[in-house]
């Protein structure tokens, strides 16, 4: 052991400080860094399970791939980088420091003669006189010169660009500094505490006040980066740190209250600025200060920086009208809801849980499709960088909710509060989707002349009502046949057909009707039959509307185009209802908006170390790359001068400079 360890230690030292090792480390670090950019980091673990399946999920988790940059093996690479750099500095420091000071004045004439870059000149001047002239010249060129008396003459030893070596120190110690600063701001302390069992990640979805002390970090925690969402009028004295598949609660030394959150907009509707008016209180409840923060303008309080990070709904109160879509005669019923809260709905079809997820006070939608000019060549060459935003329009508020049935199945809905104009007619829109990655499919409910959906709802009820079916069909048959050719038998047949069409439609919309035709009509006549059925359906629907209006003591519908479209649109909508995924449509009547501001709070004591390191790195890189270290010697004997020049790198610039110095010597020696 005793005999092998020095040589083993020495070879480790050699390896760590070798250039090839440094190159390998830089390359390995680069490749390792790629992983975390390809695989999305710090996602909820469920997403990974879905993406990779249980086997690979666990394998990747063991490798720490969900948080690569804090994984043990990644830290090991970084440690190697720091150690290798430190060893390099330690190894080169004494040498380089000497080099910076030294003029290498002990160089022998013999070794000067062995230089690749040397030049000899004949002179008539005395060594002292020539030395003085060359010294003046070299100093003018930025060299530091030492004039040394030597046997039979003089030796000039000159150097320039010693800062190159200083650059080496600066740049390499800066790397160590930056890594250490980063480490201070990392979560190493927590990792150790977690390993020793002092701290534990909380994975349950429980109120913050119930999170046990083992998952809480004290206000004296030197470094953290967490976030919290505060609704207007509320406050927070903790932030949450996302760790792996759970979180930690970081207690703050103060309380942050949100008075107001504001969004400013450009005229085109894009957001221009996010601002939060905050109040800071100390733990005893005494107000410390008021402050407004915005993106790019954080607030520093007790060494903790408070950033405007995001925004969300803070629990907007919604007043809704619920329509029982499949109940023919029910009037709408009122519902009150609050975003981020649930409500229970009891209906004929069973019990539902309403989960209000979001409210958006405005929605900018592209209502013009693709404007023709933007794609044309001329508009680019002719030159209009001015965007034509006429097709972008704010279509007003919308709210989002999930409707979960008793079996736990849920659909997600997004309903607009205001009607939208599509193809020249106005509709209420309700979007539905089965999974978050899908686009919303929209059911459009036509508005009547008064701008309400009541007519649509009335007609829908009439079409679905089995008790009215015969009356509607009879009215239709009576109207359909010419007055002079009234034949009770044909009228009866037509009535029956109409009842059948209505019944089929009430069972499943156009789809059921289509299936019926497919099952009962020979292929060749299907198209014709479909046309007939559709015609019957439209006309009966008109009769249905007449009856419904009469029942509601409303005037007769006008037999005009508008009514025609209303009937057609209603039929489409009712048909869509069967795939809408919910028996209820919620119409937003009023809202009382409450916004929430997402704040990020960080304490990073290592920041200044990192910044100082960055500054030194910049200086170091410039010195290393743009200051060239060169040395010149001139050995003068009576009648003869020998110029020699050296540099660590023999670049083209160096060759040029050598030629210049050689010519200068020739000139000066004359």
């Amino acid at each position, binding site marked *: 052991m005793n005999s092998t360890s020095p040589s083993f230690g020495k070879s480790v030292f050699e390896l760590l400080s070798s*250039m090839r090792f*440094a*190159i390998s480390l*830089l*390359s390995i670090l*680069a490749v390792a*860094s*790629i992983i*975390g*950019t*390809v695989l999305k*980091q710090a996602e909820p673990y469920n997403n990974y399970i879905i993406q990779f399946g249980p086997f690979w999920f666990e394998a990747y988790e063991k490798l720490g791939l969900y948080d690569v*940059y804090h994984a043990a093996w990644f830290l090991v690479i970084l440690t190697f980088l720091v150690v290798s750099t430190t060893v390099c500095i330690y190894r080169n420091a004494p040498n380089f420091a000497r080099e910076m000071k030294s003029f290498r004045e002990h160089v022998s004439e013999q070794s000067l003669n062995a230089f690749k870059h040397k030049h000899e000149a004949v002179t008539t001047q005395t060594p002292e006189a020539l030395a003085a002239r060359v010294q003046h*010249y070299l100093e*003018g*060129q930025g060299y530091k010169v030492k004039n040394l008396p030597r046997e039979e003459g003089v030796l000039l030893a000159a150097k320039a660009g010693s800062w190159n070596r200083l650059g080496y120190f600066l740049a390499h110690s800066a790397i160590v500094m930056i890594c250490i600063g*980063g480490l201070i701001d990392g979560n190493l302390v927590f990792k150790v505490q977690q390993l020793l069992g002092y701290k534990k990640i909380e994975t349950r979805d429980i109120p913050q006040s119930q999170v046990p002390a083992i998952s809480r970090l004290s206000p004296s925690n030197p470094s953290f*980066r967490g976030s919290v969402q505060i609704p207007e009028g509320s406050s927070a004295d903790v932030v949450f740190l996302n760790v792996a598949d759970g979180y930690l609660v970081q207690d703050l030394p103060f309380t942050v209250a949100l008075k107001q959150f504001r969004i400013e907009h*450009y*005229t*085109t509707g*894009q*957001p*221009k*600025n996010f601002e939060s008016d905050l109040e800071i209180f100390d733990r005893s409840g005494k107000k410390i200060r008021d402050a407004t923060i*915005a*993106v*790019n*303008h*954080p607030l520093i309080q007790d060494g903790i*920086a408070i*950033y405007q990070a995001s925004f969300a709904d803070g629990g907007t109160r919604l007043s809704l009208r619920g329509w029982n879509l499949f109940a023919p005669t029910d009037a709408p019923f009122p519902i009150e809801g609050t975003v981020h809260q649930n409500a229970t709905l009891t209906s004929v079809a069973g019990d539902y849980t309403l989960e209000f997820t979001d409210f958006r006070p405005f929605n900018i939608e592209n209502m013009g499709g693709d404007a023709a000019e933007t*794609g044309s060549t001329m508009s*680019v*060459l*002719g*030159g*209009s*960088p*001015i*965007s034509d935003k006429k097709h972008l329009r704010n279509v007003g508020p919308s709210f989002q909710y999930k409707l979960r049935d008793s079996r736990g199945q849920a659909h997600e809905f997004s309903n607009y509060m205001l009607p939208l104009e599509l193809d020249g007619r106005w509709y209420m829109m309700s979007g539905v989707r089965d999974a978050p990655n899908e686009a919303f499919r929209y059911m459009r409910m036509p508005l009547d002349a008064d701008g309400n959906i009541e007519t649509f709802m009335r007609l829908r009820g009439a079409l679905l009502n089995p008790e009215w079916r015969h009356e509607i069909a009879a009215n239709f048959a009576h109207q359909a046949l010419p007055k002079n050719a009234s034949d009770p038998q044909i009228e009866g047949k037509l009535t029956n057909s109409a009842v059948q069409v209505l019944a089929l439609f009430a069972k499943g919309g156009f789809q059921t009707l289509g299936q019926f035709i497919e099952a009962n009509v020979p292929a060749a006549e299907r198209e014709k039959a479909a046309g007939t059925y559709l015609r019957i359906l439209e006309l009966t629907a008109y009769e249905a509307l007449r009856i419904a209006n009469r029942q509601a003591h409303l005037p007769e519908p006008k037999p005009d185009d508008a009514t025609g479209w209303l009937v057609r649109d209603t039929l489409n909508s009712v048909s869509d209802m069967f795939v809408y995924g919910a028996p209820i449509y919620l119409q937003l009547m009023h809202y009382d908006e409450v916004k929430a501001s997402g704040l*990020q*709070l*960080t304490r990073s004591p290592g*920041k200044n170390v*990192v*910044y100082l390191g*960055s500054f030194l*790195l*910049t200086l170091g*890189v*410039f010195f290393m*790359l*743009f200051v060239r270290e060169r040395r010149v010697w001139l050995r003068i004997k009576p009648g003869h001068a020998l110029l020699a020049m050296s540099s660590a790198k023999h*670049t*083209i610039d160096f060759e040029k400079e050598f030629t*210049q110095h050689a*010519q200068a010597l020739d*000139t*000066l020696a004359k």
Partner: protein
Amino acid sequence: MELALHQPAPLLKRLSWFDWLFAVIIASSGLFALSRFGEFMDPYEKGILLAAIPALAVFGWFWKSFRPLFIIVGAVSLFAISQYHGNLARMDEAFFLKYLISSQAAIMWMCALFVLATLTYWVGLLARSAFTMKTATAMTWSAVALGFIGLMVRWYESYLIGTDVGHIPVSNLYEVFVLFCLITAMLYLYYEARYQTRQMGAFVLLVISAAVGFILWYALDRGAHEIQPLVPALKSWWMKLHVPANFIGYGSFSISAMLGAAYLLAQRGILASRLPKLEVIDDIMYKSIAIGFAFFTIATILGAMWAAEAWGGYWSWDPKETWALIVWLNYAAWLHIRLVKGLRGPMLAWWALGGLLVTTFAFLGVNMFLSGLHSYGTL
């Protein structure tokens, strides 16, 4: 006799009357801008403007060709602005604006000239025609001038759309691609004059032409040339420093990659007699990477400092940040390889060429394939 020694006179005595005129023009226009628009600037922006005065003046003294470029770009941009009469619709009416120097017209001229210059450089290279090469250089200069005029006018146009919309045109992928072309071309033109060799233009301009192709596709197919207001995260003076510094890095790395390609070809005897000596190519490759690395370091640090103000942390391992680190590590490795005796030459050329892939991914790929905080220029 003393003159033959290249005895450097003190800096100020070496300056010609034109140098002084140039400095006076820069100082007076900078101070004029400050007095006229100072009330709309925050202290940092004023600081940037004031610091730009000596920076540009010294840059012009250091690289003399920059002086006429600056003056021409400034004069033509002012002329273009005067043609607007404060009315955007003039873009389609005024003759000069419509066909030459409205932002979009100027940028399209830049694109056309870069492509022409590329072809001309190749013709000159293959035909060994010094005159053709000179023409190519002139075309490249014209493209740079028009490109800068385009950006300047675009800056003004953005304020005509709305005073709250106006911003420096380095905010989205379209604008920075124009900037990339300009910076790459300027870096190249500097080396061309410094090394008295035009042969490398054929290679360097290829990468610029590729960028031009992207610009055209992006504008024609995606309408990306439209001026959009800034998202809140970008409304900061940091953008004026971070973005240009980054593109000096990207531009230099692209040049070094193309030189790497030229090196590898010449080494195999392809075009060898038409290209500069291997040592010269190697030397410019090194210089280019040195400048790129230094500025990329600064840009990444500035980015981190901005991130600390906008996103709440100087380093979040966001894909763009991480890829910036990967690019930095890649060229740090390159600079270290250069110091190992047995690995120089072709190894460095290959590494620089491979670096183009890494750089392109960091610049473009991250925006196309990965999502994160830095999603300002999505495709």
